[in-house]
């Protein structure tokens, strides 16, 4: 099936099998390996990307579902060599250890701040509740999102 989508500002077209998952399309066809495959069962959120302005787990979406969509992956956040404020926050606040969950965490945080620019800590925790981190205990991630929201 022919699909066409705008990924990080570039129109990408391909002929794909209907069963191809969006995350595999991004990683293997477009070589955008930022979205990770963690649990592959829609639990861990490592594959989170933003589809038409809303976060989605790319392991639980077919590439054909995203036909015609606009997608942002973690690779599309930095602009002109300048990190996105959420990326800055993760850097400054040690929001990661192994880094596996990080791209998904960052995309969920971006999604949260787009809807809720000034979240409380509770809203931050809820905003990332679809993403698992097995290293940090989450506190540094909350601090990172808080910094990105302009609140130290």
């Amino acid at each position, binding site marked *: *099936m022919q699909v066409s989508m705008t990924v990080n500002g570039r129109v990408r077209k391909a002929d794909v*099998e*209907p*069963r191809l*998952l969006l995350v595999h399309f991004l990683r293997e066809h477009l070589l955008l390996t930022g979205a990770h495959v963690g649990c*592959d*069962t*829609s*639990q861990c*959120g490592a594959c*989170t990307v933003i589809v038409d302005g*809303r*976060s*989605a*787990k790319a*392991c*639980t*979406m*077919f590439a*054909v*579902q995203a036909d015609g969509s606009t997608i942002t992956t973690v690779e599309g956040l930095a602009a002109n060599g300048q990190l996105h404020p959420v990326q800055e926050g993760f850097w400054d606040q040690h929001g990661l250890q192994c880094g596996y969950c990080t791209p998904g965490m960052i995309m*969920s945080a971006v*999604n*949260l701040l787009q809807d809720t620019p000034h979240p409380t800590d509770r809203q931050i925790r*809820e*905003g990332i*509740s*679809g*993403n698992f981190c097995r290293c940090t205990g989450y506190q540094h991630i909350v601090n990172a999102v808080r910094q990105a929201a302009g609140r130290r």
Partner: protein
Amino acid sequence: MRAFDVFTAKDSRHAVALLAEHAATSKVKVLAGGTDLLADLKFASASHAPDVVVDISRIEDLRSIAVTGDGLSIGALVTHTEIMRSPLIRDMFPAMVNAAHTIGAVQTRNLGTLGGNLVTAVPSVDSGPTLVALDALVTVLGPAGRRQMPLAEFFVGPRKTALKPDELLLEILIPTTSLGKPTCFLKFGLRKGQALALVNVAASFWVDRARNAFVAPRIALGAVAPKVVHASTAEAYLEGRAIAPEAMVEAGRLAVGDAKPISDFRASAEYRRDLVAVLTRRALEGAYELAKAKQSEK
């Protein structure tokens, strides 16, 4: 995942035509938000894997939330996030917003649809109890036309609905008699995020102001029977009775008898029975608080 063919439906009639065309000879699945379907397909045995998927996600006529002459109509493709953000639903049925909020996590609510949640029909379906308590109807479309039935009858058993292979769920209708009815939904899970309900309960009733009595009380229980069920004994007990804390406690006790929970790795049947009593009482209290708040607004 086994290979399949996908057909994209342009509108609901086209979807039904596709279902009718392929259901006779193939195993067919419907793709809406995909959050349940993909989880199933990844683990489906060869004998259950579909040959054909009908993609209804691009149908525009199943996305509206509107009050019509028949009640509040919610299109089957409305997502949980859209329910949470709808000013109309928030105002009329905060319980629906609260229920949607407990489903999955943000990413799942962004994709997952109300229709899909109901069609999957797991016994713990979080959007079920509130709608059953509001006497919601569902409209389905088949080759012969539309038919309507109570949601409580649409649910048949675990992952089983009254939907025929060539029928499509179009809308969920909360009838005019239930519009604005004070309703409370409560869910008990083992975590706040991404948890299945051990028990979920919705309670709904009108208040007879003159007598301060229950009118048309409804209590719907989830995750404690093969499908969402009415706590009929508790409902009958409350009908016309004076509103009092003792009556709510007794309704909770009676609701336990209406539940048929099983023990599994999440919780024992005994624990679930205790939860039914407590959550039913609290849901009744919550609905009464809403009723009082609505009264004081007037």
